[in-house]
């Protein structure tokens, strides 16, 4: 057998990109609750209702995703024809928001499912496509909608029940970003693809705690593979662990000898004010999309942050597996960005 050298892979789970892969432009569309949150000013478009004059919440979610894609393309001065691939995913069965959005864009499409880790999964695949010389421009997008996710994963939106204090609120919104082999913007520098980690949590409201071990595993392996310390980054940002998951992630990494606390934050914690009744924080694909692509992308463009490690986390359960008493497996993908 001929030996094959993998040039770009580092350690067990990471790849280091050598070519320039920039995040050329980004766009975010936010729902009503998100528009009232502390990061509201960073979003490109705000909606004060969740239905957007569409016939269903599913169509409203797709509408937001389409809008985010067109806004990102518009900002970069590009059209869908300039894109080589469209990589998108969402939380709904058969990733319908992404597929239905792709129907209108007419770009070669790869639909992905990584639950709330979709953003970094998309960035990872897109980054490797550009690095490998398979694409010049890749559009990566993701969306989630509180009402569509509630209906699929939990109860009807108008059903009255008490949410436990550790529950999280699915974010309504969408985000899109263009990866390009040229242009100005934060550079995608390395990728650490996560393993599926199951902490044995069975409560579908306790997702932050279910996902924290996956996040900790990916971040730990990222540091080991690339021989870096937490202080290498200005910011380590997890996707949607919420208040409890964030603490657990810090504790797990501290027990393995990495103190990430000084420069660590979580999108789910940042997106809302405490008085907005979201309990432990935000969750959903759009959580990391809104916070990173809206807020921190701009901070990077303004050179306030130079090195960021973005780790979006996803819980890979379904309503079926939870009713069948299966535990909740989770995943986290990390990408590092530099400017």
């Amino acid at each position, binding site marked *: 057998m001929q030996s094959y050298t993998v040039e770009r892979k580092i350690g067990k789970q990471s790849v280091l990109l050598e070519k320039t892969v920039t995040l050329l432009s980004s766009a975010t569309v936010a729902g009503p609750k998100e528009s009232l949150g502390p990061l509201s000013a960073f979003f490109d478009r705000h909606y004060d209702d969740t239905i957007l004059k569409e*016939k269903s919440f599913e169509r409203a979610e797709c509408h937001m995703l389409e809008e985010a894609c067109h806004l990102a393309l518009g900002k970069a001065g590009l059209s869908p024809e300039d894109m080589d691939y469209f990589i998108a995913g969402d939380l709904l069965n058969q990733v319908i928001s992404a597929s239905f959005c792709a129907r209108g864009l007419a770009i070669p499409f790869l639909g992905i499912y990584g639950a709330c880790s979709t953003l970094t999964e998309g960035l990872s695949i897109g980054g490797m496509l550009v690095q490998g010389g398979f694409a010049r421009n890749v559009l990566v997008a993701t969306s989630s909608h509180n009402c569509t996710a509630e*209906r699929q994963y939990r109860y*009807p*939106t*108008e*059903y*009255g*029940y*008490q*949410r436990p204090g550790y529950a999280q609120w699915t974010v309504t919104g969408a985000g899109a970003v263009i990866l390009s082999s040229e242009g100005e913007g934060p550079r995608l520098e390395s990728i650490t693809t996560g393993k599926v980690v199951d902490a044995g949590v069975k409560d579908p409201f306790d997702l932050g705690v279910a996902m924290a071990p996956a996040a900790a595993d990916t971040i730990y392996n990222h540091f080991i593979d690339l021989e870096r310390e937490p202080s290498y980054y200005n910011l380590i940002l997890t996707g949607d662990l919420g208040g409890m998951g964030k603490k657990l992630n810090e504790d797990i990494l501290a027990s393995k000898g990495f103190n990430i606390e000084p420069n660590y934050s979580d999108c789910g914690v940042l997106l809302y004010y405490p008085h907005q009744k979201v309990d432990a924080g935000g969750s959903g694909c759009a959580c990391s999309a809104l916070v990173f692509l809206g807020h921190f992308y701009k901070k990077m463009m303004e050179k306030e942050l130079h090195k960021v490690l973005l780790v979006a986390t996803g819980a890979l359960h379904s309503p079926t597996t939870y009713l069948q008493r299966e535990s909740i497996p989770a995943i986290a993908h990390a990408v590092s960005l530099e400017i």
Partner: protein
Amino acid sequence: MLGQAILNLFIALGVPEQQAGNPTVATVILIAAVMTGFGIFDDIARVAGAGIAVPVTGFANSVTSMAIEFRREGLVLGTGAKMFALAGSIIVFGVVTAFIIGLISALI
């Protein structure tokens, strides 16, 4: 307490005391269903908890919320089919329990 007020209202309107219970329950169900339709019920339930979920109001809410949620999938396969998806087990086990209790009381 609200139920008692409605009950007293019906008695004041001339409904015999023994029979006033039925229109009271019907009224409470109607109020819960209308509140669900206007999107207020779930906000109250987050605070009131079991106080509003356990009595007949919770049952009315589970049926109406499902009916609204699946209206887009059509009247027959959406609303009609999904309406009792949450409340169905209450009916099933209610009937089963009633049957067993009935059997026990018949034997004693």
